[in-house]
């Protein structure tokens, strides 16, 4: 499907107890590709991207990130996590550290970069998300949108090859959604490989190479945004689009 995929998921199956959450998921993501994953709640979108950096374990199948295989035993999880950045719905900034410390923690303790260098590089990323002047504030002093942009900068400090976004704008006030989406669009323009779980269909239209629609733990439809929105093939996709695009 894709030449030299940077993320490849083959035959992924996951159960929560007896509940079959992910069923035979196959997905290949090329370098620089931007994929939006959408679908009704409980369809397994978040679980799928959380499997990619092993925040969830899975029972069958294989995931490879940049050629590093990650089987159900999760043996090479540390190597995979170094290549994959993640942004969460609830930001998950570390509230006891300043913005700058949030961004230097992993470079210092995982990559053993000296503190001075880590701070210089963190400031570079904070400038990219347009909050360099708030570097010494604590996350609790910032708005949700600012916190989420810091979270993006924090993930970028580890220079990941792939970025995962798990509903990055769902916990935000409407006024703040735009600033986060703008940051993500900038990131996409720079060529970052992105897997984004979101309900922001405008973002999908503008940025995505491919839209993946999931329901009941399986991929129902995968298509270019133009085709997906104009001409959905599967009955479930049509229903979903008619529900969310009605307003």
């Amino acid at each position, binding site marked *: 499907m894709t030449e030299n995929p940077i993320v490849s998921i083959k035959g992924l199956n996951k159960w929560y107890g007896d509940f079959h959450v992910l069923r035979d998921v196959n997905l290949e993501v090329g370098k620089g590709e931007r994929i939006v994953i959408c679908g009704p709640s409980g369809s397994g979108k978040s679980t799928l991207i959380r499997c990619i950096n092993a925040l969830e374990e899975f029972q069958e199948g294989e995931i490879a990130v940049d050629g590093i295989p990650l089987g159900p035993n999760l043996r090479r999880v540390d190597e995979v996590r170094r290549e994959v950045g993640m942004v969460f719905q609830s930001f998950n900034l570390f509230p006891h550290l300043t913005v700058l410390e949030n961004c230097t923690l992993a470079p210092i*303790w995982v990559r053993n970069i000296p503190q001075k260098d880590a701070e210089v590089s963190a400031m570079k990323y904070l400038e990219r998300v347009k909050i360099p002047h708030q570097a010494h504030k604590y996350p*609790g002093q910032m708005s949700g949108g600012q916190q989420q942009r810091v979270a993006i900068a924090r993930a970028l400090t580890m220079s990941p090859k792939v970025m995962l976004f798990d509903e990055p704008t769902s916990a935000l006030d409407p006024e703040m959604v735009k600033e986060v989406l703008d940051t993500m669009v900038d990131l996409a323009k720079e060529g970052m490989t992105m897997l984004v779980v979101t309900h922001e269909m405008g973002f999908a239209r503008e940025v995505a190479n491919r839209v993946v629609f999931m329901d009941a733990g399986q991929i129902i439809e995968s298509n270019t945004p133009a085709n997906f929105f104009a001409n959905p093939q599967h009955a479930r996709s049509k229903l979903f689009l008619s529900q969310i695009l009605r307003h």
Partner: protein
Amino acid sequence: MTDTTASSFVREAMVTERSAPVKTTGFVGFLRTRLLNSPTNVLLTILGLLLIWYTVIPAIRFLLVDAVWHGADRNACLAENAGHAVGACWPFINAKLDQFIYGFYPAQERWRVNLTFLLAALLLLPMLIPRLPAKGLNAGLFFFAFPVIAFFLLHGGGLGGFGVNWTASLLVAFADSIKSAGDALVRAAGTTPVVGPLLWLLGQFVVLIGVTLSLILTPLLWVRDQILASGRPVWIDFALTAIIVSVLLFLLSGGVRTGWRTLVTCLASFAGIAIVIAVMGLDRGGLPIVDTRLWGGLLITLVVSVTGIVTSMPIGIALALGRRSTIPLIRLFSIAFIEFWRGVPLITVLFFATYMLPLFLPGNLTIDGLVRALIGISLFTGAYQAEVIRGGLAAIPRGQGEAASALGLSWWKTTALVVMPQALRHVIPGLVNSFISLFKDTSLVSIVALFDLLGQLRASFADPNWATPTTAFTGFAFTGLIYFIFCFGMSRYSLFVEHRLNPYRRN
């Protein structure tokens, strides 16, 4: 505004800010809204005033107005000599103050206690003031260097050797215990039917391991004997240990490329140790030994409570993490340990540690009575701290750990850098609660013949020179005040830390 029929409204002038009505702020406002705002509150206010009248006034009368301030013995504190109703008998405290602070610590050696107190204060105070720099060095000195110095200051005595000697002794004891375990198995094999031969084989195998170990240790023992035979065993052993440890740490931290910092730190630490050894004369036998049975009073109270507080924290953290571990054996051990120590009264623990433990230990092994009590108290408090800390850990959202993992931090680093700092901040009130409770519980050591502040006080009541009707009240008021100063200090400091950390640094 006037047009109420239209549903549309556009504000033309913004409403400016005004100050609150006078009657709801300030002292008058406080009276009106908090003290006298309803019949019930009026009643409660009156009751409160009466309570103050009946407790504070008599207390001041007893402690200050009617108190006797000067005198040489009990006669000064008797009503017929003083000419009025007698309150607190302060000359009693004055006469017994040394005993309350030092116990039976020999008078000519008490400067050592004072020096220890001074050192503790000099190290502790800068650590507690957030503005002062070098917290890492300060903490290192207080938690690692100070206990050792305090031991040699308070207890006295010197060193017979250093690292090489200690390692050799420890390993020899280890090898010997393996050998004797093997011997025991072989002996048991003779009396056990059926599985006897199997036990015999196992025993011989264990003995073989023990013998092999001691063979491996032979060169180390030879080095030790050479050192001990030389003129200055402590210094030669010290130099050897310093070289071995420095080289090892240098190589472990990356050798020529990144190890220089570690090497410098290591050499500086050894230089510090050398200075302490030289100044205190530890290589020449050190200060005269003062047996812990002679320690007493505030000295015991502080030694027991500070040791308990400092050692219970790492124990508590380890147990709290163990109890949340996914590894069943560790979790089971932690639960059993915590529940055991929480299920037993502290008095039982102290009693067991003091009178029963020696019966179980091998005959040649004796542990000082104070040390046994300290171990008991540390484990006991550690179990309580574990549950407090576990509460803090439970309050940290799962996303925090996930975010740290997603950044590539290992479990240990996630715990040490992200989860534990937040968890400990959440439970500062609970932790300090345990500290305060421990500080007061130290008086329980008097049941195992250690005389802490309260024990020393009660002992002093037996002195017929000071037997007056108010001696006991005075003594308890005085010790109560000392306990209060320490506990209230801890309480206020914890509040200060909480406020400092509170504003934006919590979830």
